[in-house]
């Protein structure tokens, strides 16, 4: 579905993303993790067209989309959510989602009906008439998800949709994401909440200082010493292996 090859993005002197390559097969849920500042959101932004990559190629469904404008990429079926939610503040929830739905349906009644269905899908059916500005953080994340979903995407880029939710909300949203995938949408997500990452994803890429330092199935990646060091500092892997008997868990 999505292939990113050798993507590099440089800001001033900083290599925010350094020769990153990832592949997202159709129908899978793939996660992108890494410590803060690793460059995950920048990578997303490059893939979605918000930044022009300095090097590398992005292919969607076999077609080269490198350098295409944002809206063009979105129309080809790859839409992203934003880490800091961007609701259409003065519009209602229903109207927000309808904007997404209008990408699929030109007629008002169809778009509105579709928006209603998507809202139910993510559990916002009761809040349709609320102004988006009145939503809680959790509500806004859900709205973000619903809005992108309404466009009928093939690939969804989710940027930290889970951060900031309480445990029961997390469980709900994990289930929603699973259902989204079951309906045929491929998902690439950035996430910090490990519990969600572990239970959702089938393949994980780990980004640190802009480089991909590990990839693989969740179990493998978590035990990988390089990954542990990226999060906890140099030598942490050894320390942990040594103190494993006494102190506890990764």
């Amino acid at each position, binding site marked *: 579905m999505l292939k990113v090859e050798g993507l590099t993005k440089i800001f001033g002197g900083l290599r925010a993303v350094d020769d990153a390559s990832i592949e997202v097969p159709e129908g899978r849920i793939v996660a992108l993790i890494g410590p803060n500042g690793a460059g995950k959101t920048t990578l997303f932004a490059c893939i979605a067209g918000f930044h022009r990559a300095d090097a590398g190629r992005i292919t969607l469904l076999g077609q080269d989309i490198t350098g295409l404008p944002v*809206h063009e990429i*979105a129309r080809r079926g790859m839409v992203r959510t934003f880490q800091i939610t961007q609701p*259409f503040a*003065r519009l*209602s929830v229903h109207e927000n989602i*309808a*904007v997404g739905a209008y990408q699929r349906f030109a007629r008002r009644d169809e778009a509105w009906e579709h928006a209603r269905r998507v809202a139910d899908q993510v559990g916002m059916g009761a809040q349709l008439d609320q*102004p988006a500005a009145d939503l809680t953080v959790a509500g806004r994340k859900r709205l973000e998800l619903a*809005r992108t979903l309404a466009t009928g995407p093939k690939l969804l880029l989710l940027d930290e949709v889970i951060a900031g939710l309480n445990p029961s909300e997390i469980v709900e949203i994990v289930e929603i994401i699973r259902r989204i995938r079951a309906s045929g949408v491929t998902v690439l997500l950035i996430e910090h909440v490990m519990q969600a990452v572990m239970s959702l994803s089938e393949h994980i890429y780990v980004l640190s200082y802009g480089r991909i330092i590990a990839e693989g199935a969740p179990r493998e990646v978590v035990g990988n010493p390089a990954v542990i060091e990226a999060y906890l500092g140099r030598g942490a892997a050894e320390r942990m292996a040594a103190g494993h008997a006494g102190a506890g868990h990764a």
Partner: protein
Amino acid sequence: MNPTGRGHDWLLHGVLLAVAIAFPFVLPSPFWVNFGVLALFYAFIGQSWNIAGGFAGQLSFGHVVFFGVGCYASTILQLRFGLNPWLGLPASALAGGLMGFVVAFLSFRAGLKGSYFALITLAFAEVMRILTNSVEFTGGGLGLLIPARPAASNFQFAERIGFYFVILALTVLSIAVAVWLKRSRFGAQLAAIRENEDAARALGIDVFREKVKVLILSGALCGMGGAFFAQYFLYIDPMIAFGVDKSVEMLLVSMVGGAGTVYGPLIGAVLLAGIGDAARVLTNVQGLSLVIYGALLVVIIAFLPNGLIDLFQRLFRRRGGSRGGA
């Protein structure tokens, strides 16, 4: 609000239209008919501003540029090429729309938005003012005088009431456009662009193209206002056609009445015309009406940014706040 929008809204449209039609018969004196014409005129050009500024969030301070090209297009075609003045209406729509395209294409290609866009439109208007002031073809500083030959076929009326119904028709047109925007895909996309361009883009909306489209639409309507104005007053000059005053008035009636709403400009226009006439009749002090209006703008932006319509809505306790494609 009410997503299907039947029932309530059509009743409102119907009542207002009936009142508007009855108005010149109930109050037939030249003073009142003139008041009606001016109120509707400001409602019409205000709505044209509102379509770009209120619905799509593209504030302009120089909207008069579209009005002015409409004035001159219609008048010049009539005076120099013998075109029937009624055809001046579509001609001015074309001119206004073309100008809208030029301004939008240049400005948005360059990535201008917000305050910078507002200011550059001012400069465009000023350029047109200077050009028309310096060129013989447009009559230079002396302007253009349309010979008075009152006849319906000539888009001039011996009785003011004729003009009243023309501007009423135009206003109804502009309101229809606004209603359409509220309920169409295009309007929903404009609202999205207004609220958050990046998010709109991320959902697949070609922000540049939609913004150009709305400026073309807005310019075309505003241009028609110019043709009407020329016929009503029979005289235009660069200051009248491209001077800052009309830009301000268009913006004022929309912001005070309620930007991004269907009837905001009408409310603002009735208020503006009312305050203007009242100030002139009661005190004869020049400038008073705009002092009041300027103060009103400041107060509204500060305390009631959604305009007076918001106040009415709150008073009648309807579920307010939704300014999108409902």
